[in-house]
C-alpha cells in the first residue's frame, strides 16, 4: 500500500460570509491520479489553490509530502507542479526561454530542449508562445510545471477547450507523468476523461465531497441501486466515429 502523499482534513475556505469549501477531508496516495469532479462553483479550484499554497486556508489542515501547507507554503511550492486552467505566457518570449525562466524560479538550470521534446514541442523551440495553438500552449504549460521534477502535479481542467486529438494527446501525457511516479491531482468536467485517467475520484458539490472512490466502484454502486440508462449502450459513440475518420494525429 502506497503512502498518502496528500492528506486533507476538514479543509475550509470562507469568502466573506460564503463558505465555498465546507470542511472536506480526503487522502491521495503517492503515484495515483486523483480526480476532483463537480459542477462549476462546487469549490474544486479553490480546493486546489489551497493545496497549492496560493490561497490561505481558513480551517482544517492539509499535509503535502509531510509539509503542513499553511505553515510552510514555500516548501510546498518546491515539491509541486501546477498547470492552471488557462495556459498563458508573456509575448515575445521563446519557448526555450519560458522553460529556462520557470526552472530559474526554482533556482535550477535545465536543458530546455529536453523538456520541450517530452511534450513534442522541440520543433517550436525558437517560436514565441503567442504563436502556439491552444493544445500546444497546454503542453508547454505542462513542460513548465515539470522542470523541477515535482512530486505532486496539479492540473485544473487541463483539457477544457481542446479538440479531441489534442485532448487524447494530453491524456497520454498525463499517463506518462504518472508513469514517472508523480502523483497527479486533477479537476475535470469530462466524465469519460475521469473514468479513463483517474485511479480514484472525489465528487464535489456545494463545497462538500459527496462521493469518493474508484470510478468502477462508483459505477457499480450506482447500478446496484437499480440505475438503468434510458438508451441502450452502443458499442461506439460519436467521438469514436470522429477519431476514426480524422485520425489520432495531433493537428497543431
Amino acid at each position, binding site marked *: 500500500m502506497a503512502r498518502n502523499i496528500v492528506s486533507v482534513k476538514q479543509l475550509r475556505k470562507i469568502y466573506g460570509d460564503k463558505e465555498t469549501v465546507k470542511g472536506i477531508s480526503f487522502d491521495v496516495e503517492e503515484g495515483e491520479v486523483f480526480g476532483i469532479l463537480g459542477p462549476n462553483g462546487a469549490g474544486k479550484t479553490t480546493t486546489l489553490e489551497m493545496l497549492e499554497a496560493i490561497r490561505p486556508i481558513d480551517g482544517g489542515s492539509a499535509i503535502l509530502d509531510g509539509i503542513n501547507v499553511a505553515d510552510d507554503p514555500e516548501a510546498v511550492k518546491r515539491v509541486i507542479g501546477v498547470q492552471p486552467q488557462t495556459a498563458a505566457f508573456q509575448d*515575445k*518570449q521563446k519557448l526555450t526561454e519560458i522553460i529556462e*525562466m520557470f526552472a530559474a524560479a526554482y533556482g535550477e538550470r535545465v536543458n530546455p530542449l529536453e523538456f520541450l521534446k517530452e511534450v513534442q514541442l522541440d520543433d517550436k523551440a525558437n517560436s514565441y508562445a503567442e504563436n502556439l495553438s491552444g493544445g500546444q500552449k497546454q503542453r508547454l504549460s505542462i513542460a513548465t510545471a515539470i522542470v523541477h521534477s515535482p512530486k505532486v502535479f496539479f492540473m485544473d481542467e487541463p483539457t477544457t477547450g481542446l479538440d479531441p486529438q489534442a485532448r487524447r494527446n494530453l491524456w497520454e501525457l498525463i499517463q506518462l507523468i504518472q508513469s514517472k511516479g508523480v502523483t497527479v491531482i486533477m479537476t475535470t468536467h469530462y466524465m469519460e476523461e475521469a473514468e479513463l485517467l483517474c485511479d480514484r475520484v472525489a465528487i464535489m458539490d456545494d463545497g462538500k465531497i459527496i462521493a469518493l472512490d474508484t470510478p468502477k466502484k462508483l459505477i457499480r454502486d450506482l447500478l446496484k441501486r437499480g440505475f438503468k440508462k434510458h438508451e441502450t449502450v452502443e458499442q461506439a459513440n460519436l467521438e469514436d466515429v470522429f477519431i476514426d475518420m480524422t485520425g489520432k494525429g495531433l493537428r497543431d
Partner: protein
Amino acid sequence: MNVPKDSLSDPISFRKKLFTVMVFTKISTKRFFRDRLALFFGILFPLIFLFVFGSIFGKAGNSVTFNVGLINHSNRPIASQFIHEATASKIIKIDPTVTTLSSAETKMTRGQLDATLVLPSNYGAVDANKVPTGQVIVYYTENNAQAGQTLVAILQSQFQSSNSQYIQGSSPFSATSKEINTKSLTQFDYTFSGLLGFSIVGLGIFGPVNVFPELKKQGILRRLHTTPIRVWQYFTSTMASQAIIGLISLAIMFIAAMSIFHLKVVGNYLEIIVFLVFSIVMILGIGLAIGGWAKNERQAAPLANIIVFPMLFLSGTFFPRYAMPLWLQHSTTYLPLTPVIDGVRLLATEGQHLTQIGPQLGIMAIWTIVIYAIAFRVFRWE
C-alpha cells in the same frame, strides 16, 4: 495580501535566488527589445518629444534668446550695470534702435520684439536701510505672454541671488556682475532634464501600470506565484531590467541632444549614470506599487493618471519650475520627480558632483523607502 511569510529553514540558497533574479532580468530585457510597441513608447516616444521641444527651445544653438527693447530712465550706476550685463547676456538680445516706449510698442506688435524692459527713474535708489532697490518693468504683448513671464522669472531669479548678497552686506555694485550664468540658464537644459524625467516616468510608471494588470488578467502572475519565487526577486529583476532599458533609452536621448541640439554635458558620466539608475529605481517603485496593487486596468489607469500628470507638470517636466510662483516652487520641491529633474540638470549641465546634490539625493532616498514599503505591502499576484 497573499504574500507568504519567510520560512526559517530555507533550502533554496541565496545564491540560487539571485540566479533566479538574473535569469528573469535577462529574459525580460530581451523581451523588451523584441516588442515594437514597448520600443516605441520606451525609446522613440521620448525622442520625439525631445525633437519637438528641442526645436522649440533649442533654436540658434543651445540657448533661447529674447529680442528685447531696453529703455533706461535712471542715471544711477546700478542701472548702467544692469544694461551692461543685459548686453553681455546671451539670453537677452537688445535692440539698440528702441529708445521710447511707443517705438518699442510698435515693434512688439509686429512681433520683432519679445518684450521691453524699462528701468524707471528711481531704479537703483537707496532706501532707508541703505540698500539699493529698483524694479524693472517688463512690458509684453498678450500673445507674447510666455516670453514676458519667462523673462520676469529669469530676472527674478537673478535678482534673488543678488538681493541675498545685499542683505549679507557685500558690495552692491559688484553684486550682479557674475550672476548671469548662461551655461545653466539655457532653456534647453531645463527642457532636456525635464524630458529625461518624462522618459523615466514613461518607462518606470506606465510600463508596469500597463503590463501588470494584463499579466494578472491572463493568470501569468498567479502561475508564477505557484513557484517559490518571492516578490523581492520579481521586483529586483524588474528593477534591473528597467535600469538597463532605461539607461539605453536615456543614453540615446543624451546623444541626440548633444549632437543635434548642442547640449553641453560638463558633468562626470559615471556620476550621471549612478544618479539615473537611482532615479529609475525610485520612479519604477511608483509603477510597481500601482501596477502591483491594481486588480485590473480600470483600477490602474485612473490612479496612475492622478499621480503622474500633476507630478509631470509640477516637477518641471515640460516647463521649468522657475516660471512658477514661489509658493508653488517651494511646495513642489518635495515631489519625487523634482529632485530627479533638478539633480540630472545639476550633474549633467551644471557640472556638480553627487556630493553637492545632497538635498536631491535625500528627498529621493526618503521617497524610495516610502514607495517600496507601499509597493511590497500592496502587491497582489492576481
